[in-house]
């Protein structure tokens, strides 16, 4: 689908056709006629037929649609916005987060908080970072605003907890160091677009 078609939201003019439902009966007689017509034509039984057919298909045609959720899981889209993940730099293994606080600022559910400090190497260090998943609405703004592609959405969508407030700490969300090799980029909100290089103007550098 091209962008033009995508942007055309005038759905009424597309492949839809009107069904002639006839006149709404006005008088009692007309209503009676309608009832008789429908009764004699056995329209009601069409409904019964449909449901019975579906049952038959489900039971004997192998068309049962249920996924037995905790035992079977459907694959989710790569851009799905579930529990957040904190990425690391692939080369050094250091976390990517620079503690700029933009996610904290943009969060409309106000569920992100971070502590930063001046560390021994004269850098800004994130000493703690929490998200309250009880409040998070998984809008994806934090991932979109993150300048370092550090906070992204992962695929873990099972978020039930015993309490309303459910905090995840920095440690919980960071890619474990031993799984650094499996760390993959998130293609969803905030990711670099494929044609990003074409869109930016280069800053001259004198080196």
């Amino acid at each position, binding site marked *: 689908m091209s962008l033009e078609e995508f942007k055309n939201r005038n759905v009424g003019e597309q492949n839809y056709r009107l069904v002639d439902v006839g006149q709404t009966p006005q008088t009692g007689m007309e209503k*009676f006629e309608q*009832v008789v017509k429908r009764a004699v034509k056995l329209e*009601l039984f069409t409904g*019964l037929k449909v*449901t019975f057919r*579906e*049952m038959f298909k489900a039971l004997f045609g192998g068309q049962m649609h249920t996924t037995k959720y905790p035992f079977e899981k459907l694959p989710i889209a790569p851009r799905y916005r579930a529990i957040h993940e904190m990425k690391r730099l692939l080369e050094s293994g250091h976390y990517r987060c620079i503690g700029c606080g933009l996610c904290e600022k943009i969060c409309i559910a106000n569920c992100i908080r971070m502590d930063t400090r001046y560390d021994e190497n004269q850098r800004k260090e994130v000493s703690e970072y929490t998200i309250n998943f009880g409040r998070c609405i998984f809008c994806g703004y934090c991932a979109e605003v993150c300048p370092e592609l550090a906070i992204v959405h992962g695929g873990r969508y099972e978020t039930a907890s015993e309490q309303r407030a459910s905090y995840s700490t920095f440690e919980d969300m960071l890619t474990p160091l031993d799984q650094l090799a499996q760390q993959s980029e998130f293609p969803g909100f905030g990711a670099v677009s494929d044609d990003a290089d074409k869109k930016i103007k280069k800053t001259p550098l004198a080196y």
Partner: protein
Amino acid sequence: MDGYIIGTIIKAILVLAIISALAGFGTYLERKVLAFMQRRLGPMHVGPYGLLQLAADGIKLFTKEDFIPSGANRLIFMIAPIITAATAFIALAAVPLLPEFELFGVTVRPIVADLNIGILFVLGMMAAGLYGPLLAGMAQKNKWGLLGAARTAIQFLSYEVVTGLSILAPIMIVGSLSLIDFNNYQSEGIGSWLIWQQPVAFILFLIAGYAETNRTPFDLLEHEAEIVAGYATEYSGMRWGMFFIGEYANMITIGFLASIVFLGGFNSWGFIPGGLAIILKVSFFFFLMLWVRASWPHIRPDQLMWLCWKVLMPLAVINVTLTGLWMMV
């Protein structure tokens, strides 16, 4: 005489136990059938194929807190569900459930009380059942409950008329009010079933029966899209469960009535023995109710009234008149 009393008590207890168990099992069946018709699996986790779901629900209902809203009329609020359940089971007393059989040399008549006005008694008891939802709705001080109660009054009372008139024609033909007599009248095989003589009465009775048992498409009493849960809004736990059992018991009663009055009762049906035949028939009616629920939408209250007083009632009257004329001729 003593034997009669003991026998009757045993029968009453058996009916109560079996029918309530069936009512519970009915909920399982309903869920399964509805699920299949939507290509779902329905309850699957408790027991094999979710069979023990019934037990789980029972435990849940029994252990749930029984609370009464602060503004409610406590006594009536507590009694109302019992009325529903009680009337449903009392109605079954006059219904012959199976053909006679012999057990340890004793001839058992599987009817609690063979009244000579059986059918009137059954219909009367079911009509009395309307007090359950009516009082429940009025006692709970909840506007949804009150609306439910109002709907109960109009719906049950209106359709009582249709039930009565539609069944009048078969009564005229059979000449008895005892359900055993109805059964015996149709003992000559399929050809003698009353449905062939009274198809209109059968259809009217069935429609009215749905309305009486508060089943789709006439489940306006607790229409969840309009009035939350109607008369049952404030109920929970076992009290709500009694409404539920009452409704399913009524469904079974209607199934029995329809089978006995119109479809040859528990007479053996070709090679099928009478006992199995009636079970099959009742099962079909039960299934039909679920099937209808899966297929058809609700109707509006005004359509319900219109249907009752302007279509079904006149049809029933005409049917009775024509039957009378036919019998005179």
